[in-house]
């Protein structure tokens, strides 16, 4: 009956072919449907982490509804934050990340400026080469790196294995290529006349970089900084392979190695540690999100 009524109504009124607002409404509904679906899908693990971190070990192993906390407690947080190890991991990770971001930015901004602006023989090939190195997976690199470290020890006597600061040398191999690539794209979008004007105004190449390019390319620089911070904060393989002593571990590896004793998983503290470890990038992203998006899309459109 209802169908007939609708049909009758439609035949009376002139038909709106491809009505924009109706199409739009449906497009919106579908996008919301999928966005909510994805949001639920991706927020499930962190949400589960949060729930578990608020439970006692007894409640975690009890056969109750895992999606509810019956006796919320902060004991995991207190235990973890009063543990010296965890604070050392945190400090190591923070120091490594800050140093890596600094090293990465210095190298990639200088490299990108040279590759984007000082047209020299082979600069285009070199720019492509930089990006290609980014495509080599880090799993392929750590065995040759072991060999190199052994060679360094034999020649100079400096031991690079089992030190947290070794990561400051290692991580840039992952972060520099991509950061350079972002910066090349960003610098290339700056009109050529801008550096010519600076050149005529009497600026040296270095002054052009520091006084014109870096301020103008700030969104790109922030995007590259966030990227290299994420790389170094979340990196798991290299610290796992190259560090073993508790005092030299970084956060991701430290949580796993110290809180899993044999086959005993201290789930409450693991989840708490993971949650605390995820906090700094989250906070940084939240504040700099706009810059990040602007930086990643800068090469695409001019202006």
């Amino acid at each position: 009956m209802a169908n007939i009524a609708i049909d009758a109504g439609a035949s009376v009124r002139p038909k709106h072919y491809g009505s924009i607002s109706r199409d739009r409404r449906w497009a919106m509904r579908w996008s919301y449907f999928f966005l909510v679906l994805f949001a639920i899908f991706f927020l499930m693990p962190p949400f589960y982490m949060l729930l578990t971190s608020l439970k006692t070990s007894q409640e975690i192993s009890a056969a109750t509804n895992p999606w509810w906390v019956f006796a919320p407690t902060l004991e995991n947080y207190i235990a973890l934050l009063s543990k010296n190890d965890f604070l050392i991991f945190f400090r190591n990770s923070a120091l490594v990340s800050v140093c890596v971001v600094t090293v990465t930015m210095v190298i990639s901004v200088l490299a990108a400026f040279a590759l984007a602006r000082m047209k020299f023989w082979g600069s285009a090939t070199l720019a492509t080469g930089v990006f290609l190195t980014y495509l080599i997976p880090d799993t392929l690199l750590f065995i040759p790196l072991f060999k190199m470290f052994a060679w360094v020890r034999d020649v100079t006597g400096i031991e690079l294995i089992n030190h947290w600061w070794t990561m400051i040398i290692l991580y840039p191999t992952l972060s520099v290529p991509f950061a350079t690539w972002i910066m090349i794209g960003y610098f290339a979008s700056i009109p050529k006349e801008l550096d010519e004007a600076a050149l005529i105004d009497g600026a040296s190449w270095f002054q052009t970089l520091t006084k014109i390019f870096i301020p103008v390319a700030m969104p790109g620089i922030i995007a590259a900084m966030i990227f290299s911070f994420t790389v170094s904060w979340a990196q798991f393989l290299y610290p796992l392979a190259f560090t073993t002593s508790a005092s030299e571990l970084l956060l991701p590896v430290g949580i796993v190695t110290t809180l899993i004793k044999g086959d005993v998983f201290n789930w409450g503290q693991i989840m708490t540690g993971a949650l605390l470890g995820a906090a700094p990038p989250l906070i940084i992203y939240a504040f700099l999100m706009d810059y990040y998006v602007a930086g990643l899309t800068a090469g695409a459109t001019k202006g």
Partner: protein
Amino acid sequence: MAQVTLRKVVKKYDEVPAVRGVDLDIADKEFIVLVGPSGCGKSTTLRMIAGLEEITGGDIAIGGNVVNDVPPKDRDIAMVFQNYALYPHMNVYENMSFGLKLKKTPKQVIDDRVRQAAQILDITELLDRKPKQLSGGQRQRVAMGRAIVRDPKVFLFDEPLSNLDAKLRVQMRTEIKKVHQKVRTTTVYVTHDQVEAMTLADRVVVMNAGLIEQVGTPNDLYHSPATKFVAGFIGSPAMNFIPCQLDQAAGALRVRMGDKLSFPVPEGRTARYQPYVGKPNLVLGLRPEHIMETRPHIEPNQHDFDQLIDVVEPMGMETLVYFTVQGAEVCGRVNPNAGAVALQPMKLRADLSNMHLIDDSTGKVL
């Protein structure tokens, strides 16, 4: 004193010549406009004077010193770019003072100069704004301000008005002329717009295919073009070019265009044109204003003829009529009240006292 001298200047990009040997003397305080179609080498020439392009051959001297290997910052020049090239993160004041700051000029001097330049350009109230808060015309003023502040030997303008709309372009053109009258700095100005060239220049340099076609005052170029290219490039609507022949009959010379149309050559020119009688590839050059409606009183060297009009374009103060002679489209400027009607015959008058005879095989005006 800042004359600019170019001697046999050549620029090649990977063996492709962009500028093929340019000789030019620009006097102190002179306003020179380089004009030509795109790809004629005018911008490259300007950029070589600025030092933004290395020169492949020849010499460029500014104020008597050869600057071939001198970097842009030491040439004592200032340049205004087509897209303004203002530093987006600096306000107007910082944009204008950037060059002086780099030279470590005392703060007070910078402040005086910036405010003086701002006053000349009427942008004093904009000094705190960022470029993106300015309109196109205002940005152009700031770009000029940045040049003026540095008090250079030479101003270089690279198509500075091309990004502005038509009305603003005319306004800024006058503005640039006023500024030059105030500061009297030697100026080299590049444009593809011949009206801009005519209105601004003390002397115009017409370039084509990497070479200078002619150098002269706007009136020189307009009335005595040296080549067909210059004759056709300067003036709007462009000069008419009609294929013709030179006949001699009973001691008098006549330009003949096909079977129907032929006019006697003005007396003063018969001796000059005599050698070209019967030669092929001749073209008559006649500006649209020398083809008008017929009038009661007739001057010497004016001749009436009947013509079928193809198209009529009323412009307000005048009406343009288009018709075809010998396969060439010809434009005439007639009085709006002369009653020109498309596809109707009309009695027109040609004034040959300002005619040009062109050898089409060499492109030279005879």
